């Protein structure tokens, strides 16, 4: 079933920033996650893939402090930690960019970046905030012409950039991107993938939830496959084919996707 040839041993890497061991979570009678292990190192992009209901979102929620896990340990840096609230995750240095981005369209880029953490609450320091905004955006080589325009006027890729830049404000060590390219066009997807690479260059650990094999192959270093709430293999992206990943996701080499591909091949040769 699960391809063991390229499967990595789950022993903890010495340089990992964030390690999960044996994370389980049940909702009522449903075991959403069972004994999940995951490691992220600084400067590493880990793609978490899986079918619908594989537990990807639950994993994100545990890491971002929305749901606490039922059992298992989370090690951040070298300490064992608990993440009971979103604020705790933020404080540790785990930033999450949710799929819907959570931006206020009526506010401009600066106002969105600093929302809830404005400089000088009783007499806002716009100058400091604008300077810092430009620093962040430059750091991401973002293509946003002006930070004084409302977010409503930005493209999908630019909004994703703003959301990612906002998550960088607290100098996080690990950043979680939930389906960052799901709603984007070809060019915008490429922009966001560039952005992910830049995060890696800046030494952050990146966890990227994705459905898109092409994106995963393009930027990830490691792919962790979830299937029905369990680990179903961790692969080195350079050594694995998209077919193998799909096989791990669906749990069979003979699956709908491969059948379809072989059908198409036959169709084109005949």
């Amino acid at each position, binding site marked *: 079933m699960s391809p063991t040839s390229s499967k990595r041993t789950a022993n903890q890497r010495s340089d990992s920033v964030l390690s999960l061991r044996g994370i389980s979570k049940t909702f009522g009678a449903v075991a959403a996650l069972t004994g999940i292990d995951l490691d992220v190192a600084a400067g590493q992009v880990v793609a978490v893939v899986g079918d619908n209901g594989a537990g990807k979102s639950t994993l994100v929620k545990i890491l971002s402090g929305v749901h606490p896990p039922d059992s298992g340990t989370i090690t951040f840096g070298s300490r064992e930690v608990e993440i009971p609230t*979103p*604020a705790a995750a933020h404080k540790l240095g785990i930033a999450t960019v*949710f799929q*819907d*981005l*959570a*931006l*206020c*369209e*009526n*506010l401009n880029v600066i*106002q969105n970046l600093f*929302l*809830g*953490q*404005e400089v000088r*609450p*009783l*007499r*806002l320091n*716009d*100058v*400091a905030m*604008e*300077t810092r905004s*430009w620093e962040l955006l430059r750091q991401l080589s973002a*293509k*946003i*012409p*002006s*930070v*004084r*325009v*409302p977010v*409503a*006027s930005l493209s999908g890729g630019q909004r994703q950039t703003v959301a990612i830049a906002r998550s960088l404000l607290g100098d996080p060590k690990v950043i979680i991107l939930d389906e960052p390219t799901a709603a984007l066009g070809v060019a915008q997807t490429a922009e966001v993938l560039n952005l992910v690479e830049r995060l890696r260059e800046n030494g952050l650990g990146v966890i990227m939830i994705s459905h898109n094999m092409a994106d995963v192959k393009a930027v990830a270093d490691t792919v962790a496959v979830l299937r029905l709430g369990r680990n179903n293999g961790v692969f080195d992206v350079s050594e694995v084919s998209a077919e193998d990943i799909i096989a791990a996701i669906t749990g069979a080499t003979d699956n709908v996707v491969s059948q379809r591909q072989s059908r198409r091949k036959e169709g084109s040769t005949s």
Partner: protein
Amino acid sequence: MNVTTDRQDERLQSREGLRGAITDVVERARGGDLGVIPVVVGLIVIWTVLQILNPIFLSSANLVNLTMESAAVGIIALGIVCVLLVGQIDLSVGSVSGLSGAVLAVLFVSQGLPVWLAIGASVIMGAVIGWVYAQLFNRFGVPSFVITLAGLLAFLGLQLYVLGSKGSINLPFDSGLVNFAQLDFVPDWLSYCFAVIAAAALFASGFFHARERRRAGLSAKSLSTLVARSVALLVVLAFVVWYLGQTRGVGWMFVFFVALVLIMHYLLSRTKWGRAVYAVGGNVEAARRAGINVKAIYTSVFVLCSTFAAVGGILAAARLAAANQSSGSGDVNLNAIAAAVIGGTSLFGGRGTAFGALLGIIVIQSISSGLTLLNLDSSIRFVVTGVVLLLAVVVDSVARKSRTSHGRA
């Protein structure tokens, strides 16, 4: 040339100095970011028409009256701007203002309490009403529309109960409160001082802000723009003061209203609380995830709105020198909401300014005063006000479409 941090993108067109600033404004208006332009244009049209119909309309005496009439409902509209900004509504401001006037009159006249105590009690009562609304809204999730509709009826009943069988209580003419609302005018020299101070303050804040931005390597408004802006403000204010000074001058009550507008403008645009208000109106979920205490923001806004309604009610009672059963009823509610909307506050939340309340109420009061001068029935006044309100909302909708197509929504 040394390019500032925020001007490095080659797609940005650079516009320098005063000419550039004017071009920017024109461009923004074309893109549907109209700001106060529609209400100013509307005001000019309304004033021209009314002046043609009745030459007394733009006389100094009538305009002085207009400013004095604006203050009470204008303050209520200021509260409405706040609730509209978070995407909610308060329909009970009229009743609350009437109740507040009644409570004031009963405590001050019937019970013989000192006037400041009566005022304090009325204002606190307004704040408590807002707090109760907020609790109902936050805890039970009842739409603010329904809560305040219930409040509209309940507080109207309470107002009638408080006033008792007589139904009307006169305030003594020699009290400071009635004086403040009817007879207290700023001396001419002080009015001019206010105008100069306002222009100087505008220039100083702009100058220091620009200097700070230049030091941080950001683009800033040029000195010529700042000077032109301040001089324009000075000329306008000095003209207003001079013209109103031909008769009675500028009333302290109007100054009080403008001061409240300025305070609210500062709070909304320059504080963390103001940002949170706009954020809640734009996207509640995003605000919550950004760590904003959304419930506290709703509470603060409902309390502020009812408090302003109470203050407006006190001033209305003082202006009339009486509190009666019709105080705060009829068109007060709709005038306050119409003023906020005409002033550019969006009914859908997240867009609007404190100055909108000032401009909006002047439009509403102009129509009301102009039609009264023409000896027209209040039936026609209602119709005209309704049409103007509709027009304002249509302009807002068209501008929103234009903003979307120009990428400024």
